[in-house]
Structure formats: C-alpha cells, structure tokens
C-alpha cells in the first residue's frame, strides 16, 4: 500500500513540475503559435541557476530553510532572458512555422554550451537540502514536505493562471490576440508587447519549474533535451494551446511515468509515447485541443 502511495505522490510531484513547463509551452503556442523546443533549456537554466542562487545565499548567511523562496525568486529573475529571446524569435514570426521551430532548435544547441560554459559538464545537486522541511506523515505514508509544497505551489499557480487568463484585462487581451491577431491589433492591442510579455511569462514558468525540481534530483546537461520529450508528450496529450490540457496531460504523463518506473523500468518513456500515439489516434487534437486539419 505504501508503494502505491509513493508512486502516486511521486507521479503527482513530477506532474506538478511538468505542468509548469507545459503551461509555459501552451501559453506561448496559444498566443504566438510557436512551439518552443528550447523549453527544456529554460528548465535546465532554472535548475542550474537555482543551485547557484541557493549556494550563494547560504554562503552569505541565509538559513537553509530559505532555499525554497530563493529557488522561486531565482526562477522568476531568470525570466529576464525572455524579452531578449523573444526579440530573436520576432525575426521569423512572419515566416513558415518550420523556420520558427528550427530557430528554437538553434537555441537548444546554443544553450547546451551556455550551460556548459557557466556550470561545467558535471551534474550538480543541492544535497539533502530538500529534507530540511522534514516529512509529512499521513497514516503509514510519509512524504517529504518539500515535495508537497511544490505540488501546492503548482496548483496555486495553475489556479492563479486560470483566473488571470479568464478574469483580468490582460488575460482577455491575450485570449483575443490568440484568437485573432489582426483583429486584436485593430482594436488597439499592442501586439508586440503582448508577445514579449507572454513569452517572458512562458519562460518564467519553465525556469521556475526547473528551479523547483532541483532539490529532489540533479541539474544536468541532459535535462534540456530530455525534458522536451516529456513536455511535448504533455502538450500533445492535453492538446496544443490548452491550459486544462497541460494540467491533465501533466498528470497523465507524471503518473504513467511513476507507475512504469516502479513496475517495469524499461517501459518508462515507452509507455508515455504509446499513450501519446493512442490519444492522437482517438482524438487527433489531444484531449482539450481545438481540432486542426
């Protein structure tokens, strides 16, 4: 029974982090129609920078328990690279999607070495810091408090994003621009600013996700390319452009992966992709996506 809960909670934790990255992807795709292959690079950047930030803050006397807020702040601060990257992508907005995709691939390649340059080739960790919040025990099951906090944070962000997109003025303008760019522009929306801010928000979600995951695993140079695989599975299952899809897709992928690892390790990624393909056969647009083609 404990094993079952471990798998469940482990899967949901992984899903929480995946959701953040996927939400960033969906936001950017929904508004700008760009699929960002470099989402994994932002994630890895968040992870490495998060470690640096925590180590720095502890070296400067901050008590260990502050590492969670430090990670979050580090992730948000990193969002500052968003506008610069968006400017680069702006050069290919009017072109065929293939070129936009390729440009994000170029970013992936470049970021690999940027990470290598600043942090070297070896994986990095935060040691046992995640345990400094202790564990939460419910009956016979105990789970690190840190993980629970991250899951809660993810839910809070999901709810916040949802409310923000549906209720706020900015959210409405976003949705209008996503629906019909020319019309939104004609109605006075500053599309350039919207694109820049959306991309930055999407980037931030990725960097925060990477920062939050790092206490429980390691930051490595494999992260950028490996995350893309799962993040894409999430958005394909959930449906490109849909936030709800990101949530449901993340849960499906997170839980499948956790289950696969514990029962039959070889099946890990295989299982996820079988589900991806099955969903696409049954519902080509994903579970919540709008049908295209």
């Amino acid at each position, binding site marked *: 029974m404990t094993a079952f809960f471990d798998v469940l909670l482990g899967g949901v934790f992984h899903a929480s982090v995946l959701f953040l990255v996927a939400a960033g992807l969906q936001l950017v795709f929904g508004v700008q129609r760009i699929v960002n292959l470099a989402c994994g690079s932002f994630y890895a950047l968040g992870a490495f920078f998060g470690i640096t930030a925590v180590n720095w803050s502890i070296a400067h006397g901050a008590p260990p328990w502050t590492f969670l807020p430090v990670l979050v702040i580090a992730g948000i601060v990193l969002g500052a690279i968003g506008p610069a990257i968006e400017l680069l992508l702006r050069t*290919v907005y009017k072109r065929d999607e293939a070129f936009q995709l390729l440009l994000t691939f170029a970013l992936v390649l470049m970021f690999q070495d940027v990470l290598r340059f600043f942090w070297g080739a070896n994986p990095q960790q935060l040691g046992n810091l995640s345990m400094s919040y202790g564990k939460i025990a419910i009956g016979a099951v105990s789970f690190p408090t840190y993980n629970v906090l991250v899951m809660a944070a993810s839910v809070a962000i999901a709810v916040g994003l949802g409310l923000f997109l549906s209720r706020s003025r900015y959210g409405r303008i976003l949705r209008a621009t996503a629906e019909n760019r020319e019309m939104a522009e004609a109605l006075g929306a500053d599309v350039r600013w919207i694109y820049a801010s959306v991309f930055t928000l999407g980037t931030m979600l990725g960097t925060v996700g990477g920062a939050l995951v790092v206490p429980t695993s390691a930051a490595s140079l494999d992260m950028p390319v490996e995350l893309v695989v799962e993040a894409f599975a999430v958005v394909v299952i959930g449906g490109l452009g849909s936030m709800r899809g990101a949530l449901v897709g993340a849960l499906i992928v997170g839980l499948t992966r956790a289950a696969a690892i514990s029962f039959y390790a070889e099946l890990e990624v295989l299982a996820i992709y079988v589900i991806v393909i099955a969903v696409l056969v049954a519902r080509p647009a994903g579970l919540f996506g709008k049908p295209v*083609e």
Partner: protein
Amino acid sequence: MSGAVPQRRGLLLAFVAVAIVVLAAFPHIAATYYVTLVLPAFAYAIALLGFNLLFGTTGLLSFGHALFVAIGAYCAAVLSSRVGVKSLELILLASSVAAVVAALPVALLSVRYVRIFFGILTLAFGMLFHSFLFKFYDLTGGDTGIRVLRPTILGMDFKELDKTAFLIGPFYYACLLLAVVLGVVMWRVVHSPFGLHLAAIRENPIKAEYLGVRVRRFRLLAFLISAFYCAIGGVILAVNTGQADPELAYWTHSGELVFMTVLGGFASFFGPVVGAFTFVFLKSELMGLTQYWRFCLGATLAVIVIVFPRGLIGLAKDASRKAAKR
C-alpha cells in the same frame, strides 16, 4: 515544362560531373582524416535526398526521421553481427525494406496532420523508437548498442585491408556509387509527374485535390521513399563507425537532419547534398577548434534561418543572378 535555361542545365551537369570526379580522386589526393569524413557526408547526403523529398518537395517537416537512419544502422548491426549476413548488398536491401515497413504505420498516422502537428508526431515516434533501443538491453544492446561487423562488397571481404584502408578504399567507392545512383533516381522522381504532384501538394493541398491529386496517398508515398533513403544513410553510418547506438534515433539527431538540409538549401535538389558535406566538415573543424562547438553550430543555424533561409545554394543562386545582371 518550365524551362531551366539549357545553359544552366549544362552548367549544372558540368558542376556535378566535376564533383564526382573530385570525390573519386579524393582518397588519392587528400589526407586520410578528411577522406574518412566524406563517408558520413555520403551517408547524410543520401539520407537527406530522401528527407528533402518529404520536406522541400512535399512540404512536410518531420522531426523524427533519425528513426529511419537508426533502423538502417541497427539492421546492419543485427544482420552482420548476430545473423551472420555480411553482404553489403543484402544488408542495404534488408535495411531499406525494414525502414519502409516501419514507416508505413508511422506515415499512415502522421500524414493525417500537417505542419507543427506532423513535426511533433514524428518527433514522438522517433523518441518511441529511441526509448525502445535504449531500454531493451537484451534485444538492442541498450545504451551501448550493437556492433557492426565489416560487410563484404560484391562478395569480396578485402581481408588484407585494415579497417581504415577498407573504409577509405572499397567501401568509399561503394558509397560513392550508391550516392550517384540514388541521386539519379531521386532526380528522376522529383522531376517526374509524381514529383510534380508532390510540389502541388506542398504549394496548395486544397487546389491539388481539386485537380485530382490524392493528397494523403502521395504524402504517404513520399514518406516511404524518404524512409528508404534514410535507412541506407544509416547503414553507411553504422559500417563507418562499426557501431549502431541508440543516440542515432534521438530527436536532436533528427533536428540535425533538418539543420543540414536547410543549411544547404531545402528548395534546391542539391541543397541537401551540399548541406550534408558542409555540416560534416564544419562540425569536425569546430570540434577541433573549441569545446563550445554546439554553440557555434547553433549560432550558424540561427544565422541561416534568419538571414539566409534558402541556404548555401540559395546564396549561390542569388550571387550568380547578380553577376549575370552586370
């Protein structure tokens, strides 16, 4: 039909003839190191000729075609080191057939979509295969992969030659011959009625349907042909390195295929070939110059995408047009 000016055709043919002669003489005039680089260049040139039938001619961008390169490599490995089949001709045939068979379900599913969805779906299939190769250690050798033993060419095993001598000797010329033959075949296909229909599908699939073109079926056929070519490229790569490993199927390898094609020029027939050679040599030089060669490659791709989307051939065409005007 559309007239490429006869002089230009003649010039093109002359160029190609010179290139073939240079390539044939290369092992005798260049340093061994550079000759060994030409082998993966041949491999990618062939693979990309196939890939570009799908991308440049039919307009479908796949981010998973490394899957078929990997199938070619693993077939060569399994046949040579596990089944004992050493004939290069048989290996090429079996690998390409295997790739086409594998491509059928992938294509059937994927051609229902276009554009970004097609790209993501093909990426998914590529990674599915990668995870299979990576995890099923007993079958596929896991992350080490499977060894590829030296094949026989036309029945001859060239026992007296060491590995390098074999590769830059008989194998080199076999690959050159393959590249030329497969190139001619692809040229015919692209300029055939079938090729014309593929171009129509790329330009405007709706109108193409109204002119009686079976869009999905032809996309499928283009996909199958591209898989065939990629597998042959994979065989060459595998024989060259002596190993089939799962990273051949990783999505970033698929990304490199696209990179090379766009680098050379996706809108021209020879673009992919130019791209393959350029990329292989560029990557090798960069790796020797700096440990941050990935960054350099990425930056190169960014520059191509932003400034020279029609690639090197596009640049050359623009330059010759300007020169002609003077």
